[in-house]
């Protein structure tokens, strides 16, 4: 039947009908090199074949959007002629194989996506998921965490971009499949965004950066019949990052982009040279001809197949104007980089690959990029959902609030992440206005009065229980976080981490999450400008929880209004904005309590349960809350703001007192009728969205209450800052009364203590 037997196709991850489409597109049988090229471009990773039709549902337009999905990164207008360029990307699999290098090269990749757009990167964030820190896999998890954190630090610190925020959570389902999502944001002049287009027949195509080696050639394409037996061992599956090389590339590219010699540029990330050439050709509606002989190589005897598929890091492809070669080469020379001319732009629309003048591949760019298969995969609601929604609190023994708070504060997901962010240079570039760990990351934009706040959030537990509402909650949380810092959310990026989409129940979760995210974005007026999809996150057939991670970017018009989470002065008033208690809504008692604790960290940590209905969310109320926060911060009414999320109101109050220099609080939460033990616990530890704890100077209380009423946001004064204790009563009855210093020590040392354990 075909020129390649089924084993070859399987190794390339191509289905028989996909092969037929290749033959159709070419009008002939592909060569092995061509097969390799198709296989990577039509892979899930590059073609989004399972998710593409659903991603279309995301709202991607808005008055500020300068660049939506489709380019190396998205961009939004931040005023003053500037754009914020940002994107998030996953590096899950490489980080599991080699945590340090996997994470480091993930950071390197996302930074390239930003500066290829003509933006100077000024901030990095990440979102990480690992298995439990103790138990049978604890030692391995701790090594993975150490490696990933060191890798992110190693790359970001060296290249000089501050890592200003992120999140980490620990859950059983990630033990065999950790998630490493990294986000980068840069600033560009909005009239000078650079695109990944080729154009201008006869213009030269340049290759700049690290030399190409056999690293990272797609695993599925490795041991084909054409290779000798030793080629597999010659090809490490993991790449080593070189932040120094990338720093040179970054500076050289930005210098080049100041002039007008450049037509387009793209980094060589996934699918390397193949992806960069064909995508730039397809976007520009033109052809590209290269000769692999001119590609700088690190190893001897590389075949065209290997050169085209290598994923060696820190490489860029550029199309520049003919006649400007000397100028371009001189800029790279200055930075000790060698720009190699490897080909030119043609009118054919073809990707033509030669080796020493001889054609080894000739494929229409459109076939590779635009005509990749698209699947509407079957979906089915997973059966486990019927089970997990049942939550019978009466069968559990409630834990005292104080004990529960202690367990939560020392659980790795809630404990202070200082051990982590202390390893990240979060201050380089002298823009960081809210220090790491103090809420959303906030950087000022030098030369303007503005600042940008950003936050990455996801919640696999909620999405496991309800992917639709879980995705909404993730967006709402990220938006709320930037709003707490004083920002108006103006754009978002997302990374969809899921299992195998060929399984209908996984696919169902993916579709639910995308639709939920779309609805939430529409309701909150936050366009999605890009993102990334990471599928097949499974080990031994066990998938991770559906884990959409959302990165929201917010604008602060007056940088001096930026806020952190911690109390600033004793004697200020504490106000709870949003629905007053953890239940979030006024359903009857009992049911309300169980709804309030559904999916909570409390249930997981104290009772080992992931069950119930996910926290309440009212998008209209959320929208009103965001508006209120924007007005209150711009009016300088607030001293601190911290949203309620993992661990609920009790943890939010404690965290507001932490890092405040020892300012405690005295809080009384309202009781509604006769409160049972579970009602109290739900009020303290329920995780309903749409709530923020703020502190205000006594004189600002009135204006804040008026503003809240005007915005239609429930607001209630619940206490006052001061003293050296965290004291919380519910309806006047003591619930928590703890010396702040003791609680803070527990919280701040819990994570580090895991790493003080023997390596074993």
């Amino acid at each position: 039947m075909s020129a390649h037997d089924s084993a070859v196709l399987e190794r390339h991850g191509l289905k028989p009908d996909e092969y037929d489409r290749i033959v159709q597109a070419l009008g002939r049988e592909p060569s092995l090199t061509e097969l390799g090229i198709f296989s990577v471009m039509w892979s899930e990773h590059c073609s989004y074949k399972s998710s593409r039709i659903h991603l279309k549902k995301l709202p991607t337009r808005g008055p500020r959007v300068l660049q939506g999905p489709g380019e190396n990164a998205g961009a939004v207008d931040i005023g003053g002629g500037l754009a914020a360029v940002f994107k998030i990307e996953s590096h899950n699999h490489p980080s599991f194989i080699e945590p340090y290098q996997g994470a480091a090269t993930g950071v390197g990749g996302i930074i390239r996506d930003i500066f290829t757009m003509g933006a100077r990167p000024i901030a990095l964030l990440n979102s990480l998921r690992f298995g439990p820190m103790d138990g049978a896999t604890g030692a391995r998890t701790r090594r993975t965490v150490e490696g990933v954190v060191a890798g992110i630090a190693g790359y970001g610190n060296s290249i000089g971009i501050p890592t200003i925020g992120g999140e980490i959570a620990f859950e059983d389902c990630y033990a065999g499949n950790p998630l490493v999502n990294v986000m980068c944001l840069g600033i560009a002049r909005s009239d000078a965004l650079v695109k990944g287009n080729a154009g201008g027949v006869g213009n030269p195509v340049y290759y700049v950066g690290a030399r190409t080696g056999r690293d990272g050639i797609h695993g599925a394409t490795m041991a084909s019949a054409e290779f000798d037996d030793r080629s597999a061992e010659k090809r490490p599956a993991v790449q080593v990052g070189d932040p120094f090389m990338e720093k040179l590339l970054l500076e050289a590219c930005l210098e080049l982009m100041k002039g007008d010699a450049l037509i387009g540029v793209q980094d060589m990330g996934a699918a390397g040279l193949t992806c960069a050439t064909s995508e730039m050709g397809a976007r520009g509606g033109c052809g590209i001809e290269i000769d692999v002989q001119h590609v700088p190589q690190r190893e001897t005897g590389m075949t065209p197949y290997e050169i085209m598929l290598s994923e060696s890091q820190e490489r860029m492809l550029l199309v520049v104007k003919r006649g400007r070669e000397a100028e371009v080469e001189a800029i790279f020379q200055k930075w000790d980089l060698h720009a190699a001319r490897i080909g030119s732009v043609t009118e054919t629309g073809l990707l033509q690959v030669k080796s020493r003048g001889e054609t080894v591949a000739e494929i229409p760019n459109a076939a590779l990029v635009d005509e990749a298969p698209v699947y509407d995969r079957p979906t089915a609601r997973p059966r486990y959902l019927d089970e997990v929604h049942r939550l019978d609190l009466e069968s559990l023994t409630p834990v005292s609030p104080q004990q529960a708070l202690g367990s939560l504060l020392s659980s790795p997901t809630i404990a202070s992440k200082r051990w982590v962010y202390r390893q990240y240079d979060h201050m380089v570039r002298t823009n960081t206005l809210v220090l790491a760990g103090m809420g959303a990351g906030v950087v000022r934009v030098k030369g303007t009065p503005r600042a940008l706040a950003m936050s990455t959030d996801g919640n696999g537990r909620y999405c496991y229980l309800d992917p639709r509402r879980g995705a909404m909650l993730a967006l709402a949380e990220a938006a709320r976080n930037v709003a707490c810092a004083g920002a108006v959310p103006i754009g978002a990026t997302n990374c969809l981490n899921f299992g195998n989409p060929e399984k209908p129940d996984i696919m169902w979760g993916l579709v639910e999450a995308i639709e939920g995210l779309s609805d939430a974005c529409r309701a909150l007026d936050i366009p999605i400008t890009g993102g990334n999809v990471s599928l097949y996150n499974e080990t031994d057939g066990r998938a991770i929880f559906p884990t959409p991670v959302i990165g929201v970017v917010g604008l602060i018009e007056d940088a001096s209004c930026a806020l952190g989470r911690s109390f600033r002065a004793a004697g200020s008033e504490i106000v709870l904005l949003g629905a007053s208690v953890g239940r979030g809504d006024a359903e009857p008692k009992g049911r309300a309590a169980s709804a309030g604790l559904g999916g909570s960290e409390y249930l997981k940590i104290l009772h080992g349960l992931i069950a119930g209905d996910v926290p309440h969310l009212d998008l209209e109320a959320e929208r009103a809350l965001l508006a209120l926060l924007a007005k209150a911060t711009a009016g300088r009414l607030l001293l601190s703001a911290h949203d309620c999320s993992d661990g609920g109101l009790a943890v939010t109050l404690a965290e507001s007192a932490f890092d405040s220099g020892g300012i405690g609080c005295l809080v009384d939460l309202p009781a509604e009728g006769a409160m049972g033990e579970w009602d109290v616990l739900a009020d303290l530890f329920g995780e309903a969205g749409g709530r923020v704890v703020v502190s205000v100077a006594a004189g600002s209380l009135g204006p804040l209450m008026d503003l809240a009423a005007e915005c239609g946001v429930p607001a209630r004064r619940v206490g006052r800052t001061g003293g050296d204790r965290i004291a919380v009563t519910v309806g006047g009855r003591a619930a928590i009364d703890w010396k702040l210093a003791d609680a803070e020590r527990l919280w701040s040392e819990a994570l580090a203590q895991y790493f003080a354990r023997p390596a074993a």
Partner: protein
Amino acid sequence: MKARVFVTLKPSVLDPQGRTIADALHSMGYTGVGDVRQGKYFELDVDAPSADQTRAVAAEVADKLLANPVIESYRIEVDG
């Protein structure tokens, strides 16, 4: 006894350090130096009765801790 463990990146793994050192040497005028590879070197004092047993301990330690098998390989020498 003393065991020496040499850990080097596998041949096809990128060695940015080695490359940067080579570049520096070239710009300092040492054009006769071609490729440079950088690795790690460990000296272990092992309390074992024989060279063979010292080597065995060193190998175990190298496997478990000193070398990262995904990107590195190692070699062991034992004194005497």
